[in-house]
């Protein structure tokens, strides 16, 4: 048997814990109130276009993305705008959000909410891009980069491959997995739309080998289409990082500081492809997403279809409630997700999972001295020296941190994961990056 493809440099194998992998997607009932942050995407925050007291319908535009990199935000329930004010969001900071008191679920008339799968593509390339922009679709893998921007290939560059990211390399998370197994037909239409929007011929879908059902099913569905190939990949973290994924699939290396388009690729998550399908074929804005709710001690780990703005608490209640010994709740994957300060924080477009950790696993071990074992260097998928970057950041030697490529760090956390001394290497690097970034910016002026 031929060895499965993967990326070469670095990488780790954390325990998978995909305990919710066989739980079908359930629809979470409409919450009483939703808090919809207006800055859910990478880039500029959007401008609120509704007022307090106003009645809104599900799918109605409530904040408009006006900058080049920004995205529209829509009401995820119908009802009355209770306030437009700052709320604590998943980042742990207070951010501007629209609070809607839900009164049923009345959708905008032009949205097709039927279950019927609409395969025929009538929209032109420009119409596809416009629709994606209008309906507020952003990258659902976690980075939440506005999707319409990705489809506009910069002048002088050509896109050769559309790469669909079904890797889901984070332990615990299964939302993309369920989407691939349950919504394969829709997904494929979404991929066709992205293909047309981008103007490329070839599509590769990368899926790690721990999801054989998804690989088998999507390969079957893809066989009805031209030039869509499912590529099984060896399980290795962080293969879902786009640079690692491109390397694994095509052997191409995105140059430092550049985007995938530099090597002729555009990468989109499977969740994004599904959202594109809904936006273009069903006229439906991004008002809900699939979220994995999981944890070793959770009673009923599950995959839920959740309206944007739903409090995390609602999801945990659905999964059987917060276990006694809970120490930490994480928004996102265990490797890159953020610890939540409050369970009232709303689900946003970028939330792929909610993970509950017991007390014993919530706190870090006391950090010990660095013994220069080089495990972090071995694990780093970018070929950096995390132990050294952490030292440089600790000593605030920003120019040397820059020379040692601190800005190449993708913050995957493999270094801290492997460190036998329990050193929070990524914390230090995260402190260093904005400082180095500022230094580079100042130099440019």
């Amino acid at each position: 048997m031929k060895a499965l493809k993967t990326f070469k440099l670095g990488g780790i194998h954390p325990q998978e814990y995909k305990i919710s992998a066989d739980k079908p997607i359930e629809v979470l009932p409409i919450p009483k109130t939703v808090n919809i942050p207006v800055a859910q995407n990478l880039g500029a925050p959007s401008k609120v276009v509704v007022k307090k007291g106003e009645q809104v319908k599900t799918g109605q535009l409530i904040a408009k993305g006006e900058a080049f990199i920004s995205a529209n935000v829509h009401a995820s329930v119908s009802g009355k705008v209770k306030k437009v004010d700052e709320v604590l969001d998943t980042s742990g900071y207070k951010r501007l959000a629209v609070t809607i008191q839900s009164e049923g679920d009345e959708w905008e008339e032009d949205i097709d909410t039927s279950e019927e799968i609409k395969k025929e593509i009538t929209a032109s390339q420009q119409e596809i891009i416009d629709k994606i922009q209008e309906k507020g679709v952003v990258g659902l893998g976690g980075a939440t980069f506005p999707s319409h921007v990705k489809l506009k290939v910069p002048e002088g560059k050509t896109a050769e491959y559309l790469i669909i990211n079904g890797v889901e390399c984070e332990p615990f998370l299964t939302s993309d997995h369920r989407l691939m197994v349950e919504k394969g037909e829709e997904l494929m239409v979404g991929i066709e739309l992205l293909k047309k929007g981008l103007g490329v011929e070839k599509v590769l879908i990368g899926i790690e080998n721990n999801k054989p059902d998804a690989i088998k099913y999507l390969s079957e569905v893809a066989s009805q289409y031209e030039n869509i190939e499912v590529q099984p990949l060896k399980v290795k973290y962080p293969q879902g990082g786009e640079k690692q994924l491109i390397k694994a699939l095509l052997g191409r290396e995105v140059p430092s500081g550049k985007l995938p388009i530099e090597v002729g690729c555009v990468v989109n998550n499977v969740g994004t492809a599904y959202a594109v399908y809904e936006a273009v074929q069903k006229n439906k804005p991004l008002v809900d997403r699939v979220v994995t709710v999981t944890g070793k001690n959770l009673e009923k780990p599950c995959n839920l279809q959740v309206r944007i703005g739903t409090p995390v608490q609602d999801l945990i209640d659905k999964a059987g409630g917060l276990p006694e010994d809970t120490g930490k709740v994480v928004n996102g994957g265990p490797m890159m997700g953020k610890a939540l300060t409050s369970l009232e924080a709303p689900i946003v477009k970028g939330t792929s999972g909610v993970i509950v950790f017991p007390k014993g696993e919530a706190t870090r071990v006391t950090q010990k001295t660095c013994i220069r074992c080089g495990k972090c260097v071995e694990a780093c998928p970018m070929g950096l020296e995390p132990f050294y970057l952490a030292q440089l950041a600790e000593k605030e030697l920003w120019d040397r941190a820059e020379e040692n490529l601190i800005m190449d760090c993708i913050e995957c956390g493999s270094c801290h994961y492997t460190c036998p001394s329990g050193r929070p290497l990524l914390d230090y690097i995260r402190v260093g990056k904005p400082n180095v970034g500022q230094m580079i910016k100042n130099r440019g002026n």
Partner: protein
Amino acid sequence: MDKLVISGSPHVHQNTSIPKLMYMVVIAMIPAMLVSFYMFGLGALRVFLIAVLSCYLFEYLIQRYLIKGPITINDGSALITGILLAFNVPSSIPWWMMVVGALVAIGMGKMSFGGLGKNPFNPALVGRVFMLISFPVEMTRWPKPIVSREYFSFAGVDDKVLDTVTGPTPLGVLQEKGVEGLSQTSNYADLMLGQMGGSMGEISAIALVIGGLYLLFRRVISWHIPVAYLGSSFALAAILWFANPTQYADPFFHLVTGGLILGVFYMATDYVSSPISAKGQIIFGVGAGVLTILIRVFGSYPEGVSFAILLMNAATPLINNRFKPKRFGHKPAKAA
């Protein structure tokens, strides 16, 4: 509900720690320890106990009274230094020399630089070389395996019989008498099992390789330094041998005698004092291999492993600066 814990990602961690890694190294050294007990009897046990206990004691005293910092004697590193130090001396070493060696290894080799993780040189080798230079007679008097067993006890060795139960190492013979002299020493099978004069831990290549493979298999060490070190010393010895087999010993002889295998797997691979990147580790290994053979063949000491590794330890910061890991998304030609 209590307050939730807030910390940066990642939220999961590999089940590893410094003591875990260190104790795996200790496990790897057990076969060679057993061989030394078998070959040298109680004398060997005596030296091991003195070395290990001294290392623990000095580390504790220095941390407690000089540095006045946290006590970290349980991290396993003092145990490794103690065992390695014992591995590197003959079983007839007087007890107080062993204590002095441990003091130099822990005090000068490690704690003077700030403790574990800060030492540029392998502490056990610092202690060993200090002893070799300070006590040249006692450090080069090699009890014969098995036959010397009964003359050793916890109290040490009876001086009267010392001369009759000690003999030279194969490398010593090579140094003195040249290749012709080697025919008097044992065959390769005996050499690999440990039937030769030498330091307590270095005599059995087989026992050392078993432990080394365990370390590689458990991924405590990577293959780069051992392969580069073995390969380069073998290659250089082979070149010399091909050039003149009557003057130079054959490369297999160099591999199985002296402290080469011990150095390759247990001392050159020391995390703290060896390079970080794969490239750097290969250069380190090649350098150590070449220096070892050069010292053995052309130097005034019959054995060169300790010096070779210490010299490469000194070069490690330079290697680390010059040879960075392979970077993602950068042209390979870019120099650091």
